[in-house]
Structure formats: structure tokens, C-alpha cells
């Protein structure tokens, strides 16, 4: 055991694993540490219990052997089947029942044949288990370990544990006294002690409750002030920064407008927290594309999208064509705003990009101009969709993109 430090690879440190444990992980931890099967260590511990020594050993190990780190627990330990039920869930109930049955059987045997069944010992064990539970409750790290199984039932579980611990200690203490034939003598003392304890509780209770409330209040305050600090940091990094930039660039209205729009969009998405799934659905992707084009070219783009669906290859091409249309509108139309409308039908995805700018004569566009023909019309046709451009000089331009949906709509 002293060589663990020098050979960390062969002999894992003695810890109580988070996964694959039956009671508190002592058996499993020992087995992993010694490199033997967990069944062996568990049976050995079980056998030792009948001298009473095993229980003491177990309790001491629970108290002093640290729990495995959370990060280590995520990687399945060597030699442990990651797919096994015990590996995935906290503990294997059926195994636990088997060991309990074994313990019960051995206990009956001991009762029948053994002369060394000492009731007193059992009450000491009760008391010890109760005390262990109470001590566990007091240790925040261990408490966290116990509660990590279920966040919802946290507080009620913790109360149940405390209650069980107190009950076991009381049973242990009273049973010990009964079997030592000292209960009658101790009764007067017990009554006295109980009265004193009750009195002290009555005096101390309001004070303790006050302390607890005070602590809760403090905690709330702390959370609130943390939130405030976070908000202040966000405002500082984004809004104040942009306002400074705007003051510096005051002579350039286009740049000022661009900065204001960028900041507005950032703040908006922060406030309303749209899910960041820009790569997966049409609506978010369309908004992202528009935001990028707007940032580069400085013309406000308003996006309205009805319905939503995941992006497939065809829709991906449609989004690229839409981006090209937005870029064209920003660069050449001279319009002060661009409207983008996306609509997801059960059969197809439509995107309209519209400006109220100069417009142009479609027939006059030379064949070799890549922008419109290659990036928009050609791209849509290659992917099985279609594109239409409606424009005339002075009437603005609308690019209409249409792409059939290939996959069946999910759900």
C-alpha cells in the first residue's frame, strides 16, 4: 500500500467510486485498489461483520476514504464494463438484495449456533450507523455526494436522513442501557437530561431559526449582487463600448448606424435568449445570415420567418443563394432597408429578399456576371429548387427562392 504513489498506473488510489457501488462504495473501492474482484472484497467485509469488526472497519473506511472525483467517474474505470447496469446507474439493487439476503442468512446461522450473539453489540452498531449518517450530513462535500443523485428531492431526503440517523442513535443508546440492565437506574438521569434538552431547545430555537433565516437572506443577497455584477459586466463590455465607439465616429452616420444595429441585435438576443442553434434550423440560420450581411454592408435587414425546419443540403444552398441576394441588394440597390421573408411549408421552403432600391433590367445583365446567374439561379437549380427575380429599373428588386423539402418533416 505504501507503493501506491510510485506505481499509480498499476494500483489505483484507494477511493470510493461514484459508480458501481452497492452501499457506500467501500467494497468496490477496495476491490479496484487491490486489483481483485469486488465480490471477493464484499464477501470478506460481510464475513468480518459477524465479529462486529467488519462493521467498524466499514464505518471507518466510509469516513476516511475520499470519494472519487467527479471527472474521474465520468471515464469508466479500467476492467469495468461501461455498459453494465451498475456502471451506468448509481448502484445495482439486485446485487444489494443478494448481499442482504446473504447477511441475513449468516445472521440466522449465528443466532442458531453461535454463542457470541451479543445484543449489546448490535445496539452499539445501531448507534454507530446513526452517528455516521449524522456526521455525513454535516460534511458538505459528502452531503453533495449523497444529494447528487436527485436534485429535486434534496431537502426532504436530507431531513429523512437526519431523522433516521437520530432514530438509530437513540435506539442504540436506549437498547445499550436496557441490555446493560441500567435503564431503571438511568431513568431519573434521562428524565433530567430530556428536560434540560427541551428547555435549552425552547430557549435556543428562535435564535437558531433567526440564524437560519439570516443565512438564507444573506445567500439571496449574494446571488442578487452576483447577478447585478454580471449584468454590469455585460453592459460594460457591450453597450458602453459601443456608445464610446459611436461618439468617436459621430461624423460618419453610416458607421454609427451600423454600430447601433449590431449592438441592438446583440442586446436583443441576450435579452430574449433565442436558442443558439444557428446551424440546425432555417429560422435561426436565416437570421444569422442576415445579421452577417448587415454587419458587413451596413444596410438594415429585417427578417421575418414563418415556420421552421431542420436544414438539409438543398436548404443550405438556398440559404447561400439568399445571402448572395442580400449582399447584392445591400451593395447595388441603394435601398435604405431590405426585407427578408422565409416561409417553411410542409413541401417547400420559400425565401424572399426584397429591396426598394434602384432595381435593374434583368435582360441587360451580361451572361458572364456570376452574382445573379451563378450564385442564385444556378445554385438553386443544381439543388432541385428554383429562383425568380422580379425587378425593373426604379421599382426595387425581389428575389424569390423556392426549394422543395427532401426529408419528411420530423414528427
Amino acid at each position: 500500500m505504501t507503493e501506491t504513489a510510485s506505481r499509480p498506473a498499476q494500483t489505483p488510489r484507494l477511493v470510493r467510486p461514484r459508480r458501481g457501488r452497492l452501499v457506500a462504495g467501500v467494497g468496490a473501492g477496495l476491490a479496484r485498489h487491490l486489483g481483485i474482484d469486488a465480490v471477493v472484497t464484499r464477501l470478506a467485509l460481510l464475513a468480518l461483520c459477524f465479529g462486529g469488526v467488519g462493521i467498524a472497519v466499514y464505518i471507518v473506511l466510509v469516513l476516511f476514504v475520499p470519494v472519487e472525483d467527479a471527472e474521474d467517474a465520468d471515464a469508466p474505470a479500467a476492467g469495468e464494463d461501461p455498459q453494465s447496469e451498475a456502471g451506468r446507474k448509481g448502484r445495482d439493487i439486485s446485487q444489494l438484495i443478494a448481499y442482504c439476503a446473504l447477511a441475513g442468512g449468516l445472521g440466522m446461522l449465528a443466532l442458531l449456533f453461535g454463542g457470541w450473539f451479543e445484543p449489546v453489540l448490535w445496539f452499539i452498531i445501531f448507534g454507530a450507523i446513526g452517528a455516521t449518517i449524522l456526521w455525513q450530513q454535516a460534511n458538505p462535500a459528502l452531503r453533495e455526494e449523497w444529494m447528487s443523485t436527485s436534485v429535486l428531492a434534496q431537502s426532504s431526503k436530507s431531513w429523512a436522513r437526519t431523522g433516521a440517523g437520530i432514530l438509530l442513535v437513540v435506539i442504540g443508546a436506549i437498547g445499550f442501557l436496557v441490555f446493560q440492565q441500567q435503564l431503571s437506574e438511568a431513568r431519573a438521569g434521562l428524565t433530567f437530561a430530556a428536560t434540560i434538552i427541551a428547555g435549552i431547545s425552547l430557549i435556543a430555537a428562535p435564535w437558531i431559526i433567526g440564524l437560519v433565516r439570516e443565512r438564507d437572506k444573506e445567500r439571496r443577497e449574494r446571488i442578487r449582487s452576483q447577478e447585478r455584477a454580471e449584468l454590469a459586466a455585460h453592459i460594460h463590455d457591450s453597450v458602453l463600448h459601443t456608445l464610446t465607439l459611436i461618439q468617436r465616429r459621430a461624423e460618419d452616420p453610416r458607421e454609427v448606424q451600423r454600430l447601433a444595429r449590431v449592438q441592438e441585435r446583440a442586446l436583443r438576443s441576450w435579452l430574449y435568449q433565442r436558442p443558439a442553434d444557428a446551424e440546425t434550423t432555417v429560422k435561426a440560420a436565416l437570421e444569422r445570415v442576415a445579421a452577417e450581411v448587415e454587419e458587413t454592408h451596413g444596410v438594415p435587414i429585417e427578417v421575418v420567418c414563418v415556420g421552421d425546419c431542420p436544414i438539409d443540403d438543398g436548404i443550405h444552398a438556398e440559404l447561400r443563394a439568399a445571402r448572395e441576394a442580400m449582399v447584392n441588394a445591400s451593395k447595388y440597390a441603394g435601398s435604405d432597408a431590405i426585407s427578408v421573408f422565409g416561409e417553411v411549408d410542409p413541401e417547400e421552403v420559400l425565401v424572399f429578399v426584397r429591396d426598394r432600391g434602384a432595381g435593374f433590367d434583368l435582360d441587360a445583365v451580361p451572361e458572364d456576371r456570376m452574382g445573379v446567374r451563378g450564385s442564385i439561379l444556378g445554385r438553386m437549380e443544381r439543388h432541385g429548387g428554383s429562383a425568380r427575380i422580379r425587378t425593373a429599373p426604379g421599382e426595387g428588386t425581389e428575389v424569390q427562392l423556392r426549394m422543395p423539402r427532401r426529408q419528411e418533416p420530423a414528427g
Partner: protein
Amino acid sequence: MADESTGENIGENIGESTGENPPGFAESGTPPRVVIVDDHRLFRSGVRGELGDAVDVIGEAGDVDSAVEVITEKRPDLVLLDVHLPGGGGSEVLRRILPRNPEIRFLALSVSDAAEDVIGVVRGGARGYVTKTISGRELADAIVRVADGDAVFSPRLAGFVLDAFSATDAPPMDPELDRLTQREREVLRLIARGYAYKEVAKELFISVKTVETHVSSVLRKLQLSNRHELSRWATARRLV
């Protein structure tokens, strides 16, 4: 505009509003009398300046209580209403004014384009919704339109309505209210694409008046339908 035909029911006079009524503000040239309700003084004066002579601003207010006071006292043709107001928000103003003064029109104006805000205030009784990025000319246009009894939909509001009425999972409880007609849908789609009413009319070969009728009809459905999405948006409205 405070004539008898403007009944208690919001949807009652839609579509006929320009029939036998006296000429609207658009034709007569008299600017509508407007109260601006917004908690930012800078914004109020900005709007006042931008609107110029197109409307007659007769009052301002910065919170719910003073808004109710000013509106009850001045009885304007139209209230330009901010959605986020101290004291309960724009919806609260609508709730306190509309039951007793159904003739006063409301045009909601907000920086927010979240569905909850938009749908909430429109279902509260506003006849239109525009965002604060709107230009002064467009805003004046929208004010005149709403003051004349029409509805004004921004592209985004049109998008929300299409979204809300497109989900077909549950059978509508009231087919007349819970469904849009094919024509209404077409009109909304064009508005969402950024078309002005005039352009919508040209595109569909119908008159501007007919477009206005369709939009008013959609507004009525939007305000009265019990579609799940609408009630959810309306109740989920947060007041910042």
C-alpha cells in the same frame, strides 16, 4: 369618429368603417389628434419632431396613470402607445381606457419584437403594431391609417399571425375565428415580405380598400380567437 356606429364590440364596425362615415383623416386632410405615451422623454420629443404637421400632438404621458389621465381629459383620435411602461405596461392603459372609450384608437409602438409583447398588446385592443425603428413618414402614415379605423401590421406582426394560425395540430374550436381565409393568408404573406398595402393590392389585383378589409378581418380574428398559441403569447407577456 366618436359616432354611434362605433359599438362596444371591437370587431363590429371593421370593414364598413369607411362606408357611410364622414371622410377619414386620409381624405379630409385634417390631421388626427394624437397623444404620445412613452416613458422616454427624448423619444417622445423625437417622435413629435419627426411627425411634423402630419398629426396634431395634443398630449404626452410617461406612465400608466398619467396616460389614463391625459387620454380621458383630451380624448384624442389616437394614442401612440409604448408597450413597456412603468405602472403595468401598455396593456394596462388599454384595459382602463377601452371599455369606456371604445372610439379611441391605439397604435402600439415598441422596441421589442418578441411575440409575447406584440400579440399581448394587440389582443389588448391596439389596432396596429410598429417597431420604433420605423421612419417618421411611415409612422405618420400608420397613424392616419389607424385613426381612420384600419389596422396596421408590421411585417413581423404578419409573420407572427401566420405562425400562430398555421399550426394545424388541434381542430379549431370556432372555424370562423380560428382560421384565416386563403386571401387573408396571401395578404399577410405579402405584408411579411415587406409590401406596402398599395403594392399588395397591385400584386393581388384587388383594391387597397379590399386589402384593408382583409387586414382588419385578420385583426379581429387575432383579437377574438382562442387559438392556443395566441392565448399563450398573450398571457406569457412579460413586463420589463
